[in-house]
């Protein structure tokens, strides 16, 4: 890189504002839909693992193995089946969320005090109603702690998808390297971090609204 090239050329950002906004929207979709899908899979799976304890270790092992597959490799495996599409990025990101979300759903359900469970049963709640109306709401803080970790890492991982042409703001990272021009890289990174931190803050807010009875803080492991 040229020595007098500044880290950020503000004019470039101003010139590309509209385009940046488009890529930001794509990035958000690629990063957050997997978390939603992950949650849709993890909640029933977590409930199942909580009820059938023997199922939990194998499920956790599989989720951990999936998590240890490098994103780049997993994208490649799916290219063969889903081509260079958004699904190819979103399916692996969904799989990654499971290793955080499933344990947190299980731990959240385990955090329900036994007397509460018994009281619900004594009041005539059936199993399904008890799980949905009593146990899941109590599990919300722990589940959201997992969603926060999953969402932040998912948003930052989307960028790697650029290597198969679907990376949201990651586009500017590879572009900057090709042009030997740091402004797009810095801009993309700052935007990605802002997206991640804003999402995180909104999730904290969501937790406060969803669990008005507990204002105590739950931190992610």
């Amino acid at each position: 890189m040229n020595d007098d090239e500044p880290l950020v050329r503000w004019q470039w950002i101003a010139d590309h504002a509209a385009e940046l906004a488009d890529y930001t929207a794509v990035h958000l979709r690629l990063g957050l839909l997997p978390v939603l899908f992950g949650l849709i899979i993890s909640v029933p799976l977590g409930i199942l693992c909580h009820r059938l304890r023997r199922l939990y270790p194998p499920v956790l092992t599989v989720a951990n193995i999936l998590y240890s597959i490098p994103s780049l490799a997993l994208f490649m495996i799916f290219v063969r089946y889903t081509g260079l599409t958004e699904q190819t990025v979103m399916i692996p990101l969904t799989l990654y969320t499971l290793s955080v979300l499933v344990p947190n759903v299980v731990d959240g359900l385990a955090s329900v005090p036994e007397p509460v469970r018994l009281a619900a049963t004594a009041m005539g709640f059936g199993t399904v109603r008890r799980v949905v109306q009593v146990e899941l709401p109590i599990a919300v803080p722990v589940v959201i702690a997992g969603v926060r970790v999953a969402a932040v890492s998912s948003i930052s991982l989307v960028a790697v998808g650029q290597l198969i042409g679907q990376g949201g703001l990651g586009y500017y990272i590879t572009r900057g390297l090709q042009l030997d021009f740091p402004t797009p890289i810095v801009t993309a990174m700052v935007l990605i971090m802002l997206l991640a931190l804003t999402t995180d803050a909104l999730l904290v807010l969501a937790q406060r609204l969803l669990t008005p009875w507990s204002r105590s803080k739950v931190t992610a492991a």
Partner: protein
Amino acid sequence: MNDFLNQIQLVGDWLTSSSQWHGDEGIPRRLLEHLTYSGLSLLFAALIGLTFGLLVGHTGRGAFAVASVANLARAIPTFGLVVLVVTLAGLSSTPVLIALVALAVPPILINTFEGVRGVDPATRDAARGVGMTGWEVLTRVEVPMALPLILLGLRVAAIQVVATATVAAYPGLGGLGRFIVDGLSRNDYELVIGGSTVVVVLALVVQAVFTALRRVVVSPGLRAAATKS
């Protein structure tokens, strides 16, 4: 299904062909590079994460700062950081190390801090009551009791680092990612899947090492209480 079996066959062929095990482009050389990046960055990250985690957990001061820094570091896109440092400082292993350290610090820091802070205050009081100094409380009570969580943090960090070190190959550095990136640019699917398999195996070995380590170093009295995760 047939397609899947074909893939396994491909990987098998690739892994067993002798050219993979010799010379500058072979698996041993790439594996060594990969382990060097991963090992060094994990070492630096552990120095940072453990020091601050223990310090903050023990004194109870700066808890909010630790949580914020860890959260901020988690949000940094590793891929972007590697590429940015390469653009600014040129091609060397430094960008990879910086990015991987940033990736590995949060889980180590948070878990160490949570582990130390989670020690029962009554136990801590008892330790002080029998005349232990602050340092002794830390090294003989808090650290042993926090060990399961500290190891969990190190394990998560190690697996993330091993998996992410593949990104180093994109701007032209070595490591096992070379196979994946080269395979991608040459449209050589066998190379991509073969390289990925080696990384997955490496991650599983890391997982197994930490499981074994936990058996050895965690006090038997704590093991029963901390069987989860």
